[in-house]
């Protein structure tokens, strides 16, 4: 799952659960997740394409 797909689903779910205030936190988390995936890709050059952020 790409970070973008994950973020859209997470924000939609938070809205459904009556937690719209989670949106900015999830957006920040998405940036961190993208950084995490980049870090893993950098450390494991043979990592599969699916592990990349987008």
């Amino acid at each position, binding site marked *: 799952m790409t970070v973008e797909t*994950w973020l859209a689903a997470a924000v939609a*779910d938070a809205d459904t659960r009556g937690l719209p*205030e989670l949106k900015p936190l999830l957006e920040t988390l998405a940036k961190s997740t993208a*950084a995490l995936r980049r870090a*893993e890709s950098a*450390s494991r050059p043979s990592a599969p394409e699916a592990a990349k952020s987008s």
Partner: protein
Amino acid sequence: MISGLEGRRIADTATLLRTRRISATELVREAIARAENRRDLNAFTLLMGDQALADAAEVDREIAAGRYRGPLHGIPITVKDLVDVRGTPTTGASRVPAPIASADAPVVSRLREAGVIILGKTNLHEFAFGTTSDETAFGAVANPVDRTRSAGGSSGGSAAAVLTGIGFGSVGTDTGGSVRIPAAACGIVGLKPTLGELPCAGVIPLSTTLDHVGPLARSVADASLLFQAMKSSNVHGIAPAGGGLTFGVPRQYFFDRLEPGVRQSVDLAIARVIDAGYTVRDTTISGAEYTPDVYLHICLPEASCHHAATLTEHADKYSPGVRLRLEMGRYILAEDYVRAMRLRTELTAAVARALERCDALLLPTMPIPAPKIGATTVDVDGVEAPVRATMLSRTQLFNLTGHPAIALPAGKGPEGLPRSIQVVGHRGRTERLLDIAAALEDIIH
């Protein structure tokens, strides 16, 4: 009142107790009086005055009968209210209903076996999920140095109590810096041992693979005595390390953006270490810049997992910020948790490499002094940054890697707020780190 208690060390006090020049009852009475006089700090969730006095009377009887147990016998301390103390609720400083602990946590029972007296439970950032101790059901913990400032967190009440002489030390917990950060904010000593060295049983988890228990105290020697008792090892005091030590300074990432006064204090401390005849050289921890991302993807889901049931049942009883952070953890994908765990292994190896030709690492404990109570952002050398992430940024790596780390006071800045140096040792060699810290303590203070 016994004057100067707040400046006295455990070993000196132990001599007075053993020779019956003071009594445990006097020590406890004074500590309780101090706690009553400093209610403005919100350092406590529960003062256990009657029980502490009863325990002190028993200690005095034991010592009078010649049954002296050692340097912690009759020494009053406090316990963070995340840790079980028999017969009291472990609130985590939350409004979420708390059970009464049926037994002491192992670290507490070991300290009791060594003879300590528990004065009370200290306030904290709710469920240890923050660094400022201002999201709590018991009122924001104020810094005794400046009441408008945070005492740090999450063990903020512990640090405030220790600094003001309400006990000689405190049992804290540290998942990303929660012993070292309040120690730095208040100008005392805070030890995070090697991962797994002290049992976390009887402690409300925040992040089960990152949680540590550790002492806060006013000196390295005091922290060492408490650590030894918590480890259930022989309580034998400390032997400051001799000459010939080599220190590594990881400038990349850890020195990238510091409040100017912090940078000045750290540079001065390192210069003093060199002047004292020790060797200091630069070193690198590769991948350190990924630390916050790795940490977040482990800590958040582990915390959410522990709180899953109560988060559903008692959502309204959590502080809003803590609740949102716990909710955020529910959205992290398992695959990203696994990625973070893989990178954690690499970071552990990177810290070990940085330590290969060093006895210990020297770096700042926090990039800023204690922030204002209630601040959500802070200015770091001209850049506005989130306060929680900023305060965690120099400590959380060593929760990931498990290396022992200790915060040492390093003087005060021009505004009068404490500064702190962090010393990081080799995994499994916490006693050696304490010996090294004891050698540095007076040099950098």
